[in-house]
């Protein structure tokens, strides 16, 4: 047994990536998740419309934060503020009973808003907006405040990450592990052909997976799809480009499938935990939240929830689209360059690179 223990320690010591995962990752995860793991909503953004909009803005207290007022506008404007993600709650004044609209797709904010409204009522404090009557409260986009309605659009992204990043990285690194990469390098194939040939099958599999997840979500869980399929499809395509690029990048720095899996998990975990899929972005401590803005799933979540639940048009989703495209350009360019050098050992610099491990026996 002692011999086995010594052997294992020697192997682990040489596998620095595993060592890092075992020692550094738990600490890192604890710190990051400690700050990220929060369902508490401290601020609820509010848009106020109607003749008493400014009065509402002046009278509402925490957790409500009136960020937009439009005294000349009505329900339509207020609803658009919710649809476009500019506010989590809207108050429309001017009628006998003010109307409070709550964005149900922001599950935790919606629940917090309802709780805060109820508390205000119980305490006998001024009604929202300083009105003397109880407002009519309407929850939009997810009236039942169903968890599956907000999770399934996000899970579509997780499925794409799984296929795009994990499976792709395994598929590409398998060429290195089996020693077939060198064969590809000497065949009359352009690096672009090999690159596309490697990722197109996973691209198609991911699209099929996405269609299955969406169908199951809609058919079994009753998740609505209110927006444009074209906008959703465009977002999914962009997101898939980024995740496939990350998969290729991972494979180009991994010597074997074990290393690729480790790295892929390291990229998947923060995306699941920090992208707003589980914990609301606004609840994540600012010191950790910035990481979310480098994660493609953050933007895909915004697109998928926006399109599926709120029928958000592409004009109001331009920000996540632009950031996703930007990430895509960076990642795919990096992946292409890495893959090119990975595939073309003939382009090595003087003595700078060792041959592929599979063909080292000189």
């Amino acid at each position, binding site marked *: 047994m002692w011999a086995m223990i010594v052997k294992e320690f020697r192997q682990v010591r040489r596998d620095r990536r595993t060592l890092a995962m075992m020692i550094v990752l738990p600490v890192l995860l604890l710190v990051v998740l400690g700050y990220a793991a929060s369902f508490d909503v401290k601020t609820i953004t509010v848009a106020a419309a109607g003749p008493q909009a400014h009065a509402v803005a002046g009278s509402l207290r925490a957790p409500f934060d009136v960020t937009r007022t439009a005294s000349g506008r009505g329900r339509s404007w207020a609803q658009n503020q919710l649809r476009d993600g500019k506010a989590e709650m809207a108050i429309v004044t001017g009628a006998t009973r003010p109307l409070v609209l709550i964005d149900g797709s922001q599950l935790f904010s919606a629940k917090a808003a309802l709780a805060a409204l109820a508390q205000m009522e119980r305490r006998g404090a001024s009604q929202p907006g300083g009105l003397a009557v109880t407002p009519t409260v309407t929850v939009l986009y997810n009236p039942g405040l169903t968890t599956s309605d907000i999770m399934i659009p996000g899970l579509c992204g997780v499925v794409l990450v799984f296929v795009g990043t994990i499976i792709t990285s395994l598929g590409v690194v398998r060429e290195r592990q089996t*020693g077939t990469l*060198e064969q590809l390098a*000497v065949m*009359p194939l352009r690096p672009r052909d090999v690159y596309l040939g490697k990722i197109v099958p996973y691209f198609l599999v991911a699209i099929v997976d996405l269609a299955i997840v969406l169908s199951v979500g809609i058919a079994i869980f009753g998740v609505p799809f209110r927006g444009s399929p074209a906008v959703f499809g465009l977002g999914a395509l962009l997101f898939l480009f980024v995740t496939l690029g990350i998969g290729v990048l991972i494979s180009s720095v991994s010597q074997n499938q074990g290393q690729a899996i480790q790295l892929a998990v390291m990229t998947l975990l923060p995306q699941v935990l920090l992208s707003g899929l589980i914990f609301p972005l606004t609840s994540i401590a600012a010191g950790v939240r910035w990481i979310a803005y480098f994660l493609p799933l953050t933007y895909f979540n915004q697109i998928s929830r926006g399109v599926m639940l709120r029928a958000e048009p592409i004009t109001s989703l331009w920000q996540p689209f632009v950031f996703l495209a930007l990430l895509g350009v960076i990642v795919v360019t990096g992946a292409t360059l890495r893959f090119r050098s990975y595939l073309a050992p003939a382009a090595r610099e003087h003595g700078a690179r060792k041959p592929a491990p599979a063909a080292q*026996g*000189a």
Partner: protein
Amino acid sequence: MTGHDAMVAAARPDGAGPPAWGADEVCVVYGKTVALDCVTVAALPGQVTAVVGGDGAGKSTLLRCLAGALTPDSGTVRRPVKERSGYFPASSGIYPDLTVAENLDFRARGYGISRQVARQRAAEYLDRAGLARASGRLAGQLSGGMRQKLAVIAAMLHHPDLIVLDEPTTGVDPVSRSGLWWLIARAAAEGCAIVLATTYLDEAERCASVLVLDSGTVLASGTAEKIVAAMPGSLRAVAARPEGEPAARSWRRAGTWRGWDPDSGRLDAGPAGRHVITPDLQDAVTVAALAATPGGAA
């Protein structure tokens, strides 16, 4: 000088005939290790050139340069365009999770061979190599010899002008080795230039020319006969391993000890109890390696 490839037809050293492929004064350095030090080798159409040497001699590095998988730090490599080259890497380059037929189909498509021609050739090669009944089996489930034969077939399926084979017979049983050599000899007979690395000197002996490498340098080159004839000193059979300094110049082979005397002539009579042996390629290569060792040719 920066290493470069010349993928155009090159004239033969004798100035006539079909093009000769090969490498001229090729050097490759990995970090601080010199893997190849000004190595030159020629591969003539219709001939098999063997590259021999021990572990770490530089055989695979030289073959990778010839195949285009590695650009040398200096020197020139003369090889055909990718479409006209075939390569069998040390790892065999076969997909274990594809069947025999699927592996060949992928290779044929990659080299732009029409489906019909590819099927015809694959069927013929598989039949001759005794793999016809295994065409539906996963390559990963084949025996070592069968897999090597498949890899050699894959390297020559597109009828290239130059085939580079990195130890195609290592670890292969004698029957499969014979099958592999049938494939190799046939390709050479059809006019292909073949360069192969091997650790079996009996195989090298039957090649048109041999290049002996040791630690990246050329110990000897030419025909097997020429290499044997050029062996310095003489070789003698001894009953037991000699004592002292001659022990470093003796080795055991086929149950007896052989001692190399660098100072005596090939026909000089040795001390009593020693018989002069006519060396073969294996002896000549061993002597070349000993002579290259510091103090080996004292």
